[in-house]
């Protein structure tokens, strides 16, 4: 048998394995080392490209906007100023830097201003935004081709703003200097209050209210009604057995009232209205309920006609509407043609249920208030005076006796006798006369004798012996505020108000005619007006106007609108235009309007014109601040 000796040396296989193993380790380590070196090189180069990228980005921001036209460029420093030249440049013999400028398109456009999201295709070109791409290509020392891209948008975001928030300084300033002034306005604009411009709303300071004059008619009976027009006031009384019931006063001087003439009607007269040269009276006379007086010569008045409505009921009130006159009796309403006022022609009669007290004519309707508990207000359509038609009624809460009514615009103001359980003044919405609706009420805790309206104020003759004259601000019927209360020497059985003067028919037998006034001369209301600003200098003729916005209050049925005029001549001409560049459109969105881009571009001088309008009763728009934003091109 052969014996094999035990061998203790390396076999060739073991040796090979060891060498292979070591080789793998060596190769691996070498590869890692090599890779590290490449990464190191790339990182070094990236730091360099970062700085070159920053350089290009910062330099582009200093360039004139007009030089940023879509193309590929490189930068050159020329006389300490960066310049863009078409093409690319090689930096450090390694880095190729290209600056690409691209136009930007946005989703929406309004008046030439592109806005909203940037879109990659389609859309509207936005001249105020550019896309800049800095591309740096290089062949790395590591042997690889590398590229770094820096992308950003340049936006002409810098803007200035012209604001005006006070106009109290008045008109006449052509060039903007005093921030409280402007160029011109129409008479309807009210700038008297600091910080706002609004339409004249007939604001009166009732703290200044005072009795300016009174007239004592010798003898006479209880006053019933009064009507004022122009320089004259006409007053009627109950039957005075030994004298007159109809009086004509000259009230042109509210501090010195003169009685011009008077007439014995021989009956209690309940109502008076004047139209042209004639006064129309409603009387309690059974055989001449309607009487017509020629007042063309107020010093010598003359009765010219009378009419006996069949039935012996007292005339309660009279209304005139140019060619017709209406008489309301306790339970009917009659109409007459007064094409010839000296020969009134009976047209129609309609029943009223029941006991009518007073009426007010407004446009195509007559509003009658009654003592009927379930329909204190009744509405008649007088579109065809020969065919009177009752179209609506309203039941005030509880069993009330109405005393007077005044209608203005879309509102009816109704006074009632003392209501122990609630309001005595009711304001109804009569925009739909068929179905009047309640707007607001006010509790006086005494009877209301008379109601009349001056602008936003209700003039109330009350039965409160400490406050016979009450003035309420009825601008907002839901929240009626007391504007004034006055202790007179008698009750106002009737009143007529005009401008800042109340013409009262008083129960005081020593001052039957009473004039009360806040002594304001200017009490005009206006439903339209405009104001032109001073000329504002933006300081540069390379600019674009961005937007206009304003703040203020704009109640229902009122508008605040703007137009803008620009020029490169500080003296104009000023051609005011709206968003489409024509003078028939207006900027009317208070929060934000884009100003027409191309029409006003590069026009250094600016004016705005604000238009205020109202079609609402007693409500006016109020402008508090206007802002116009513009960007001067960098």
């Amino acid at each position, binding site marked *: 048998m052969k014996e094999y*000796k035990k061998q203790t040396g390396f076999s060739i296989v073991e040796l090979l394995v060891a060498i292979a193993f070591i080789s793998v380790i060596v190769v691996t380590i070498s590869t890692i080392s090599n890779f590290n070196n490449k990464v190191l090189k790339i990182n*070094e180069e990236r730091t*360099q490209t970062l*700085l*070159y990228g*920053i350089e290009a980005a910062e*330099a582009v921001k*200093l360039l004139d*906007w007009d030089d940023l036209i879509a193309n590929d460029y490189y930068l050159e420093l020329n006389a300490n*100023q960066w310049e863009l030249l078409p093409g690319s440049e090689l930096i450090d013999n390694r880095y190729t830097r290209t600056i690409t400028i691209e136009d930007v398109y946005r989703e929406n456009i309004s008046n030439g201003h592109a806005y909203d999201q940037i879109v990659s295709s389609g859309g509207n070109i936005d001249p105020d935004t550019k896309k800049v791409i800095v591309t740096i290509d290089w062949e790395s020392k590591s042997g690889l081709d590398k590229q770094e891209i820096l992308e950003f948008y340049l936006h002409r975001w810098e803007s200035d703003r012209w604001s005006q928030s006070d106009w109290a300084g008045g008109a006449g300033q052509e060039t903007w200097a005093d921030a409280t002034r402007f160029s011109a306005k129409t008479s309807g604009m009210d700038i008297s209050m600091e910080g706002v411009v609004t339409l004249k709303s007939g604001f009166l300071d009732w703290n200044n209210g005072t009795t300016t004059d009174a007239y004592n008619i010798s003898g006479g009976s209880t006053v019933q009604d009064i009507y004022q027009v122009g320089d004259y006031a006409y007053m009627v009384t109950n039957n005075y057995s030994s004298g007159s019931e109809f009086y004509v006063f000259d009230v042109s001087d509210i501090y010195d009232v003169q009685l011009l003439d008077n007439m014995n009607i021989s009956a209690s007269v309940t109502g008076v209205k004047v139209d042209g040269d004639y006064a129309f009276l409603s009387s309690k006379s059974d055989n001449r309920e309607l009487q017509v007086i020629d007042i063309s010569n107020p010093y010598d008045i003359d009765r010219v006609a009378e009419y006996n409505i069949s039935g012996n009921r007292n005339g309660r009130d009279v209304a005139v509407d140019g060619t017709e006159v209406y008489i309301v009796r306790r339970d009917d309403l009659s109409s007459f043609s007064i094409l010839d006022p000296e020969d009134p022609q009976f047209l129609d009669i309609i029943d009223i249920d029941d006991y009518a007290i007073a009426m007010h004519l407004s446009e195509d309707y007559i509003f009658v208030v009654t003592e009927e508990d379930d329909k204190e207000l009744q509405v008649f359509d007088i579109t065809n005076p020969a065919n009177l038609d009752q179209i609506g009624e309203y039941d005030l809460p509880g069993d009330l006796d109405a005393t007077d009514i005044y209608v203005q615009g879309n509102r009816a103001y109704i006074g009632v006798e003392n209501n122990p359980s609630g309001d005595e003044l009711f304001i109804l919405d009569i925009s739909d006369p068929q179905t009047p609706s309640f707007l607001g009420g006010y509790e006086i805790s005494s009877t209301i004798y008379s109601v009349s309206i001056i602008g936003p104020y209700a003039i109330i003759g009350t039965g409160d012996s400490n406050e016979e004259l009450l003035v309420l601000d009825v601008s907002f019927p839901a929240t009626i505020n007391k504007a004034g209360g006055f202790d007179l020497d008698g009750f106002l059985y009737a009143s007529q108000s005009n401008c800042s003067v109340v013409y009262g028919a008083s129960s005081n037998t020593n001052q039957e005619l009473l004039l009360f006034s806040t002594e304001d001369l200017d009490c005009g209301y206006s439903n339209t007006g405009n104001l032109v600003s001073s000329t504002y200098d933006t300081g540069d003729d390379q600019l674009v106007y961005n937007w206009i916005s304003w703040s203020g209050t704009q109640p229902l049925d009122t508008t605040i609108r703007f137009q803008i005029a620009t020029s490169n001549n500080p003296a104009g001409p000023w051609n005011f235009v709206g968003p489409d560049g024509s003078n028939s459109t207006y900027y009317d969105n208070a929060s934000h309007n884009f100003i027409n881009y191309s029409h006003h571009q590069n026009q250094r001088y600016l004016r705005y014109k604000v238009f205020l309008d109202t079609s609402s009763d007693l409500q006016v728009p109020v402008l508090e601040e206007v802002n116009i934003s513009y960007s001067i091109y960098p």
Partner: protein
Amino acid sequence: MIFNKIKKQNGVSLVETIAYIAITAILLVSIIGLMMNVFNTRKNIESSNSVHHNARFIVNFLSNRIHNVDYINNVDPDPAQLHFYEYPDNRYSLIIEDNDLIWQETKDIGEGFPNQSTAEPILLNSKKVHVSDLILIPISDGHANENRGIKISFTLTFGNINDSFSYTQKTFNTFIGLR
């Protein structure tokens, strides 16, 4: 039959010894080579990273400050080259002192500019990195308004020039505009 009896051998043959030494030598050389390579790479990376990190920091720092500057005053040949003014009362300048890049922040304390008695120097480079050749060139904007940006150039050096593995020297150029 005759059996040749071979005596049992316990020693190492010469051939085996030579083979061992040869292999060991090869291994040692390879390993030492690798080790050296790794050490050098490490030094290289440290050096390069220091320089580039410093460059990035300096540019970032200067961008942040200079963007907020209101205007620049050219005071050449003063070593500060430029004075940066920021309203209402700050003044900055950038100088090199002992191979260090120093950002000086000064407040006007009533002594008026360019008094720098309240300067609070901020060192912008790390210890082992030397800064040299700082050049600041004020640049006008597209409307020829002067000094609306500065072109900056500086050189950073790390290590000894004789030690090629740890030595890095780079010059950096960039531009920073005023906002």
